[in-house]
């Protein structure tokens, strides 16, 4: 008997699902750092996943290049605070993990969750 074809499980879906459990997080996404294309995501209605993916990848890559150029070594985490929310990004092994969150989110918890999840990106 031949094995029936099964859909391949996305290995990063659990990563974004874990991040989404935090209160206030509106979207979590794993992105290819090279081209900004989403690999796995869970997003609230109204969050533009493709925009988050592209912007997060670009910001992280830019920050990484800048800290190296400044002599501070490679970047592990970037956190951007806006008037109406947070964009938090980490990355490793050519992948970027980003989260968009409401202003009242406990961003310290989100940071810890992202840095823990970073270990699963390699």
């Amino acid at each position, binding site marked *: 008997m031949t094995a029936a074809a099964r859909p391949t499980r996305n290995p990063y879906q659990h990563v974004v699902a874990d991040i989404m459990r935090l209160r206030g997080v509106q979207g979590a996404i794993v992105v290819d750092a090279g081209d900004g294309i989403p690999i796995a995501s869970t997003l609230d209605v109204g969050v533009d996943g493709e925009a*988050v993916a592209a912007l997060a990848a670009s910001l992280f890559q830019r920050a990484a290049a*800048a800290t190296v150029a*400044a*002599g501070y070594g*490679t970047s592990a985490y970037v*956190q*951007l*605070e806006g*008037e109406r929310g947070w964009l938090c990004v980490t990355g490793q092994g050519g992948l970027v993990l980003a989260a968009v969150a409401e202003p009242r989110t406990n961003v310290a918890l989100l940071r810890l969750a992202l840095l823990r999840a970073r270990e699963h990106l390699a």
Partner: protein
Amino acid sequence: MSDPVRELSATLARDPESEAFLPLGEALRRRGDLDAAHGIAMRGVERHPFSAAAHDLLGRVASDRGELDVAYDAWDAAVSLDPTLAAARKGQAFVRFRQGRLAEAEAHLREAVALAGGSDPETDSALARVREAALADVMGVVLAPVVTPPDGVVPHADPARLFADLTDMDGDAALGAGGVAALFVDEWGTVRAGACTDDAGRDVASEVGRALGDIGGEASGAMRHLALGSWRTLHVEAERSVVAMAPVDAGGVVLVAAAPATPLGRVRRLAVRAAMRARDWRGSPA
């Protein structure tokens, strides 16, 4: 102490036709609240379409938001209404310089110099810098960005020590020694104030400022596209440093770099305080 923004807002609410929107918009702009400043400037232009000052305000706010074409058009309108408005000419020069259109930048600055009767050292200096840049452009040389923006960075007795009392907790701006460094990098990528040295005591302010200063533009663009409003702080955790940034105005940023063990909250608070100081310093009378 009274809050001028609150007072001006109240004045404007009592009399929407008043010109209180001018100092209010400028105060919001200097505070870095660009969305609010933009709203005030737009309403000001709508209510006072023949006010050169209203268009000038919109030009400044749009410039701070990185909307260079909008800023240029606003300053163009201001000049049409009041051809003697040198600040608007300098604004136009600033935009054209940022866009690499050096001949046009020079032409606008020449007009500003003429309006000042040839006795404005700041504009003379900007003109000289544009000519240097144009020459370097022709020769394929990359110069540090240079023209003073429209509302000018005023001289300071010792800009390198602008943040000294905020950062010199241990009397050291070298990160390896556990110190904290703070820099004000303007929209041209030039370090205007602050100090940063490496472990050997070498001045690395320009290198760090050049490398990190324009992340502010990236942050601003990301916030705009994600509809998260103006950016307030950005922090980057790297192997050998934690860097926090906060916007000043016109695309300028303050960045504070500290050793990795420094509490993140402290670095971020320092960046916000340093940005407020840079804003005051930049906006203070010469």
